[in-house]
């Protein structure tokens, strides 16, 4: 294969609620991704996601404005419960969804056999991180697009785009998970709820904030201290891979996996477009619709600017992280590893 001609990447934007979906569509998202109110999606949080009626209305809203709706069926059905996932796939086909984002073999196989017209996007939870793994999914399930794990450098992505027979989607903004997604049982070890089976990483029901006598604030997940913040320190949500721990080789607590930073690939945008990436994903179905609106609008403008041959105002995109720490993650250099 030859290097593809410059393609205009689609923006793939998160929606945890119908209001957020409308905000994303109005801000210029070509694709919006969202899920149902159950364990079939990896943001199975209280008060979030779509009822079948809301999904139907939202798909109509998006289609009337030329946007596509991708449905997240990106968790792994445990034995005995596969029907819930296949039912949601059938429902999505009935509602005219544009694609299902899938991680499990059984779910992909069901869609391939029963809804051959439905596009399958391979979820990041499937952890396909090599041309061979991706090619296997394409061969077996006719996957149309793969969402790449957030562990590859731009040059690795460029090499991959040339080698694989499907579209490539990369994360450019949002929460920055450290473990290979789809291969992490940390939450289950602590809370008994599985990220892969129940769709929850650090479920809020298990989270507690605890004011200490010395003015510090402890964050706990099912009683396990994930971090402790001094009086003037900014506190974070207790996610195990963003916690602070003690190790013999270190003096005092340190972020054993990663600092609590979020991904912002703004500065890499032109390079990623040149690498031939087909779609840019923005993380954050659990985020507010104001966040969705602001981030989508900013990246919409940046992508359009690059495609017009101009320099995007990267400072505006960097400012989106609002004073929080951010990183280009693995994209920039393999020293991240």
């Amino acid at each position, binding site marked *: 294969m030859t290097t593809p001609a410059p393609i205009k990447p689609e923006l793939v934007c998160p929606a945890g609620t119908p209001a957020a979906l409308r905000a994303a569509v109005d801000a210029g998202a070509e694709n919006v991704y969202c899920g149902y109110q159950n364990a079939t999606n990896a943001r199975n949080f209280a008060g979030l996601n779509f009822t079948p009626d809301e999904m139907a209305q939202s798909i109509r809203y998006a289609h009337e404005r030329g946007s596509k709706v991708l449905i997240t069926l990106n968790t792994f059905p445990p034995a005995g419960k596969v029907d819930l996932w296949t039912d949601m796939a059938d429902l999505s086909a009935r509602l005219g969804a544009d694609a299902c984002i899938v991680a499990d073999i059984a779910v992909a196989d069901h869609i391939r056999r029963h809804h051959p017209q439905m596009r399958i996007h391979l979820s990041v939870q499937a952890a396909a991180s090599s041309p061979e793994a991706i090619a296997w999914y394409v061969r077996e399930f006719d996957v149309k697009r793969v969402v790449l794990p957030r562990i590859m450098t731009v040059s690795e992505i460029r090499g991959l785009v040339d080698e694989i027979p499907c579209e490539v989607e990369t994360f450019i903004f949002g929460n920055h998970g450290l473990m290979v997604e789809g291969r992490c049982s940390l939450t289950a070890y602590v809370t008994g709820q599985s990220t892969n089976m129940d769709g929850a990483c650090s479920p809020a*029901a298990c*989270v507690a*904030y605890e004011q200490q006598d010395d003015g510090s604030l402890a964050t706990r997940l099912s009683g396990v201290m994930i971090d402790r913040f001094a009086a003037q320190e900014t506190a974070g949500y207790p996610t195990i891979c963003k916690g602070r721990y003690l190790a013999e080789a270190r003096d005092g607590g340190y972020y054993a996996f990663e600092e609590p930073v979020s991904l912002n690939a703004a500065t890499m945008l032109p390079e990623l477009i040149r690498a031939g990436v087909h779609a840019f994903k923005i993380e954050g179905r659990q985020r507010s619709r104001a966040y969705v609106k602001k981030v989508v609008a900013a990246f919409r403008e940046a992508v359009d600017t690059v495609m017009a041959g101009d320099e995007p105002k990267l400072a505006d995109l960097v400012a989106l992280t609002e004073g929080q720490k951010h990183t280009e993650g693995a994209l920039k250099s393999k020293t991240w590893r």
Partner: protein
Amino acid sequence: MTTSQTDHPAADGARGPLPLLPPPPLFLLRPLLARIVRKVAARNPGMFARLGPHAGEHFLIDPVDMPFMLHLRPDPDALDFRAVGRRGAAPPHVARISGTFLNLFTLMDSEQDGDALFFSRDLVVTGDTEAVVCLRNALDDVEEPIAHTVAAMFGPPGRLALDLMRSAADTRRRREEAQP
């Protein structure tokens, strides 16, 4: 900016949300809050479905720079939103959300991104974290921001107050970003 929560946070000054507005007395506040919550509920019936099992729970909203706290029960059949004094025991609640009035307001205004606030120490959540996350998600999925609905009830002065509060929230955000 950090608001450390104490059990008696009102002591550090009972000011209104804006320099020009003194905090209204409780007896004026009660019918006003009842009207607000009825209006918001009437405009957003889907909100209660989103609250699911948490719709019947009691929440305590604690604007630490005001002389009162707010008690909310977002139950469509027994809607309750009222100001309670700081003297005596707080009413029973599953979760308490404390913060400055301005920060709590930002959370209610879906035109503003309150996420950063939510899990920072600007807001202190005690009790059932899931119930609070659920409430916040439900408040975010409304057709018109609740802040607009409320402001519109007061006509042009209401909209002016909303603009002022938003610009105050903006100023606060910029001040925070300027910090290293």
